């Protein structure tokens, strides 16, 4: 097992100089500390504009600065060939009548049906840069996450305009729709889409305003437990549909909580997907939540409500029908 290298005589050497062991350790420590400080002082994450909940009536203007804080050209000539790596953006582009400009989408862009005819370029997070470049787009719509910064830089270096976006809130959807409307020369249509969605949301809010406000919890995953928090458009939809999210005091879009905490806050209803309800009911831990114990579980059409895009109005209607069935006849 043990190999033996060929032995050569070790040439006589001068005795090593006495080394200052402490100074070496100090030097190494300083090098590591400087490296760590350099890392900490490197390019900072560009923070998105703080997005406190806005009333629906606020006019959201199109901006030429994306969610990486970089200006992108609003020139309509730029948007002749578009690759959309964000499902919400793909839906919006079709909704404003510019689906013919799309030359690439992600694997997850399944709506509308026409989107499936567009070339599948892979993932939207850490996209395949070669494949996107080979499609020769003039504009790439990219999800503004940390991992996509390198891709955004690579596309810009190749002379492609990049619009990096995040759609966490209803106001983000409005802003994105107007940005795409300007860039794709479909401003009027984009405004129509925004107005339609806004009107539907307002109608739902009005209908449900006097219907009571039951407390709800909406676990997105049951193990570990991630719930809808204040920072998500889902929490806004719950508010519009006449429900009080028990975790609306948590700023994150999907904070992690414990089942104990849910039991302690005692929601009247629990919203979940059809695929999760059986697991929850079979799990003894969840029986500590009164809403589960007493079968006050509402099944959500997750395909409809989990998309922060042109279907927001219908999503609010769907939730309102679940929460206030008596008001169904008054809903759009």
């Amino acid at each position: 097992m043990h190999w033996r290298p060929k032995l050569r005589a070790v040439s006589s050497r001068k005795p090593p100089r006495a080394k200052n062991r402490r100074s070496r350790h100090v030097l190494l420590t300083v090098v590591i500390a400087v490296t760590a400080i350099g890392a900490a002082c490197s390019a900072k994450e560009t923070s998105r504009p703080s997005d406190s909940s806005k009333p629906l009536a606020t006019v959201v203007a199109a901006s030429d600065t994306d969610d990486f804080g970089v200006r992108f050209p609003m020139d309509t000539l730029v948007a002749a060939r578009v690759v959309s790596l964000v499902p919400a953006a793909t839906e919006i582009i079709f909704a404003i009548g510019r689906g013919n400009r799309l030359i690439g989408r992600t694997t997850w862009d399944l709506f509308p049906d026409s989107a499936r005819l567009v070339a599948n370029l892979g993932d939207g997070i850490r996209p395949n840069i070669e494949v996107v470049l080979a499609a020769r787009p003039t504009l790439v719509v990219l999800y503004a996450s940390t991992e996509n910064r390198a891709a955004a830089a690579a596309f810009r270096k190749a002379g492609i305009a990049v619009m990096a976006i995040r759609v966490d809130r209803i106001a983000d959807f409005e802003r994105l729709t107007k940005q795409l409307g300007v860039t794709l020369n479909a401003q009027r249509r984009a405004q129509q889409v925004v107005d339609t969605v806004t009107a539907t949301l307002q109608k739902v809010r009005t209908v449900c305003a006097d219907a009571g406000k039951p407390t709800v919890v909406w676990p997105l995953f049951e193990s570990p437990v991630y719930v809808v928090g204040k920072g998500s458009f889902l929490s806004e939809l719950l508010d519009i549909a006449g429900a009080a999210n028990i975790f609306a005091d948590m700023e994150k879009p999907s904070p992690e909580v414990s089942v104990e905490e849910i039991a302690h806050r005692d929601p009247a209803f629990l919203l979940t997907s059809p695929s999760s309800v059986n697991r929850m009911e079979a799990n003894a831990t969840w029986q500590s939540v009164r809403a589960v114990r007493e079968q006050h579980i509402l099944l959500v059409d997750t395909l409809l409500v989990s998309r922060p895009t042109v279907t927001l109005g219908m999503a609010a209607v769907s939730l309102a029908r679940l929460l206030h069935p008596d008001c169904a006849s008054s809903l759009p």
Partner: protein
Amino acid sequence: MTNKGAARNAASARSTLVPAMVAGLAALAVLCVLALAIGSVSLPLQDVVSALGGSGDATVVSIVRDSRAPRVLLAALVGAGLSMSGGALQGTLRNPLAEPYLLGVSGGAAVGAVLASAFGIGSAFGVTMAAFAGAAFATLSVSLIARVVGGRTDTRMLLMAGVVVGAFANAVIIVALSGLPADSLRGALWWMMGSVHDASWAGVGRMGAALAVFGGALLWLARELDVLALGEEPAAALGANVDRTSRQIFLLASFLAAATVAAAGLVGFVGLVVPNIARALGARSHRPMMLLSAVYGAALLVFADLLARTVRSPTQLPLGAITALIGVPFFLARLRKLT
């Protein structure tokens, strides 16, 4: 052994080493050309050559020069670094199953990268520096623990300290990951699976410099490694300062591994498998072994990256998964041979 026998052995070793080195370099060259031409988008070789010179279709030039070329080079440099590091550590520890990740390097680097994500450091340079700092800190901790517990640089203590530091690092990583938002969590997990997806010319420069400095130092200490491989007592009898030399080589090999982890995340099995391949090809002394390991390690990782980006194109697989799929069968075969 007689002088004639020693000379015969030397000639025999050279007769296998030279062809092995030539074959390795040829394989590396062919793989690099293939990796530049093949990808999610296949490019004619002529276009690739033109693009490397900066001429031709702008999109092809962008794909070749800004996306593929740095990626291929970084994969080669990381493979070379991991292999040299593994070879040096196997010699120091006198254990052919040792590899850089056993000694806490990977855990420390992962802690650095995950903490960088947790503090919102999003730039590739920032994550790289944080990972290197974490790996370097883990390396020094292992060395210090081994010296404090063992009284000197005891190789068994190094291994045990490495396992302990690695376990502690894993615990820190899990705690850090549990509090990360979904976006940062995804990025941290992807980093931990190894990838050269975000390769840049700046990153290639940094890794090249690390390989030149740490790898060059290891090659310079190769003769001392040969002596250490005889065992502590024979080495001491030959006049070697076992404690100091072991410590130097351990630190250099670990820093080289730290640089590879900082550049490409956690890519396992390369540092374990390739030095054993080099020895199987006839490399007995550590200098030719490390040089051969560097060439074959570079070729292996270029090949693994080529697979990672073509097998399920346009989706890209993590590099660490490919090297594990290649390395595990080899590891099992080697383990069986040793028993």
